[in-house]
């Protein structure tokens, strides 16, 4: 019935070319109650001024999957941020339209509501400010926000959703960014085996996982701390350096030489699904990463003290590596990734 009314009012509008008597249909767009996992860090401040709503999230998800965001209508956000890979992908570096290769490995879009910094260099501090970047970047979607709006503004399904979300049909850049952020806020992964063990829901670690957890606490949790398994700090850990002249790590943003080639410590949640690893996909497997730590990393003036003070390495036996990988796989969340 609503749809019918909607269509008839549109018809009326287009026939009469008048909107003087147009009154928006009333809408009901309740806030979603998110299940905030126990022990997760504080929510990002932007969350409180853009709380997910029923239709905001629905609209955001539709936009997230909208290929018309790209100049040639071939890729959407979801093309690189695939649910099965914890909303990352398995390419070495991100691939945009016409096969253009981006600067870095696609970051997973999970638990972002609890993060203070976005992107590997922390260039953005709120999710609402992020969507324009891939839209306009040459190596990603190579479009512009007005081009995007031009393509979707006559789409009735969008008109309906903008109406339901914001009270009228106007499609603005801010509304697009806010809806996408609202959707991303709902992408919370906290249902892994690890979580079920910690919450005493009947799951138990195997022997190998238990050993892995012990090694992890000794040798990894200094950086991969909190329930997100990242302390969100930026560190140069001596990984092979991206030769692209646009890369400087965190220093690209801050200009601070102490942060040269430093990157945000990655969360290890769903790490099983996000290979390859490193800021530009230097490592094909988790084993490769652990071997690299064990063999020794590249030196740098600002090499993180964890390595600087320990002969540039994290010594690990083959057995320990196996245990660690077992443990890291307990961070895989099948319900989040649809595995």
């Amino acid at each position: 019935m609503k749809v019918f009314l909607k269509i008839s009012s549109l018809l009326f509008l287009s026939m009469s070319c008048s909107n003087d008597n147009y009154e928006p249909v009333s809408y009901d767009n309740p806030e979603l109650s998110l299940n905030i996992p126990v022990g997760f860090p504080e929510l990002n401040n932007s969350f409180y001024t853009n709380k997910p709503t029923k239709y905001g999230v629905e609209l955001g998800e539709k936009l997230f999957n909208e290929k018309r965001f790209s100049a040639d209508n071939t890729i959407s956000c979801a093309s690189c941020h695939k649910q099965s890979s914890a909303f990352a992908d398995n390419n070495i570096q991100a691939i945009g339209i016409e096969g253009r290769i981006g600067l870095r490995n696609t970051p997973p879009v999970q638990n972002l509501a609890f993060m203070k910094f976005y992107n590997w260099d922390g260039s953005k501090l709120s999710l609402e400010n992020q969507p324009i970047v891939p839209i306009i970047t040459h190596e990603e979607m190579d479009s512009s926000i007005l081009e995007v709006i031009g393509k979707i503004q006559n789409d009735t399904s969008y008109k309906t959703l903008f109406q339901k979300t914001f009270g009228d049909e106007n499609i603005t850049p801010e509304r697009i960014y806010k809806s996408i952020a609202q959707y991303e806020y709902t992408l919370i992964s906290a249902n892994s085996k690890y979580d079920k063990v910690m919450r005493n829901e009947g799951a138990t670690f195997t022997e190998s996982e238990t050993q892995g957890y012990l090694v992890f606490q000794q040798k990894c949790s200094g950086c991969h701390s909190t329930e997100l398994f990242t302390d969100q700090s930026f560190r140069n850990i001596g990984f092979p350096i991206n030769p692209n002249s646009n890369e400087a790590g965190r220093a690209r943003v801050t200009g601070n030489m102490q942060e040269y080639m430093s990157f945000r410590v990655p969360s290890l949640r769903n790490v099983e699904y996000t290979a390859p690893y490193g800021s530009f996909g230097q490592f094909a497997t988790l084993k490769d990463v652990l071997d690299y730590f064990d063999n020794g990393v590249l030196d740098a003036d600002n090499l993180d003290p964890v390595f600087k003070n320990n002969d540039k390495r994290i010594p690990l036996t083959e057995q320990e590596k196996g245990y660690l990988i077992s443990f890291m796989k307990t961070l895989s969340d099948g319900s989040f990734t649809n595995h």
Partner: protein
Amino acid sequence: MRNLKKYLLLSAISLAIVSCSSDDATPVANNVTLSFKNTFGDTEIVLGGATSSAATVNTSDAGQVHHFSELKYVISNIRLVKADGTEVPYNINDLDKGATVINHANPSTLNYVMSNIPSGEYKQIKFGLGVRSDLNTLNQVSFPNFYATAGANDTQMMWEWGTGYRFTKIEGFYGTDNKEMSIHTGSTVEGSEGSYTQGVDAYRNITLDLPVNAVVGNQSPKIKIKADFNKLLSGTTNTITLSTGTGMGDNATPNIHTAVQMVKFVDNLGGNGTNDLKGMFSVSTVEN
């Protein structure tokens, strides 16, 4: 023109006689043209490729020869200061009407005509090299023309990842073996002015005294501004030696698309904001 003046004079006189009015014919406003000349010292720059024999070659204080193949920068936030000290802002909050991309390869961009400047005498000009952080948001809805100009293929003055504009874009070659140099500047700040939460502000305010007052009224003066790119490497603030490589100290191509080495170049081109408010700019003449 002379005829026009005569005519104006004649009508003014006859008006005065007929009406006994003392109003003269000075318009309330007129144009002011900013004419940019990009130089190495006193020599106007000629662009050229790696092995170009026509390109103007400059030698830095550190002894490095260099020349440019591409040279662009953004001017915005223009204010003219009257003899009595009042500031007359020129569409300072509207990038479509008050900002421009100077592109050395495109001569028509070297003259920027400001319209409807109130009649009067002006002693000083202020402008920004780059875009103020509050406007540096790639707002395509509010400023579609500037967005299109800056983003055009031949301009490429957008810094996508920083969600802002490039403020200067210099491509060229240095050293006897013509190694590539590529220097881009732009802001990476987050948060609002006065309380930036992170990043580097590459916007610089320029203040230049005019050698003689620009008289706006019957005339539409032209202010000739010299941008001396010798200062890029041999500036008031920094003497820079270019080096190529992937280390954090290298600055010719790697890193300079980032904030790492950028500030030294920004301070040379646009001043450091404290004791140097001119950077590479000076006013050579005012044509009234």
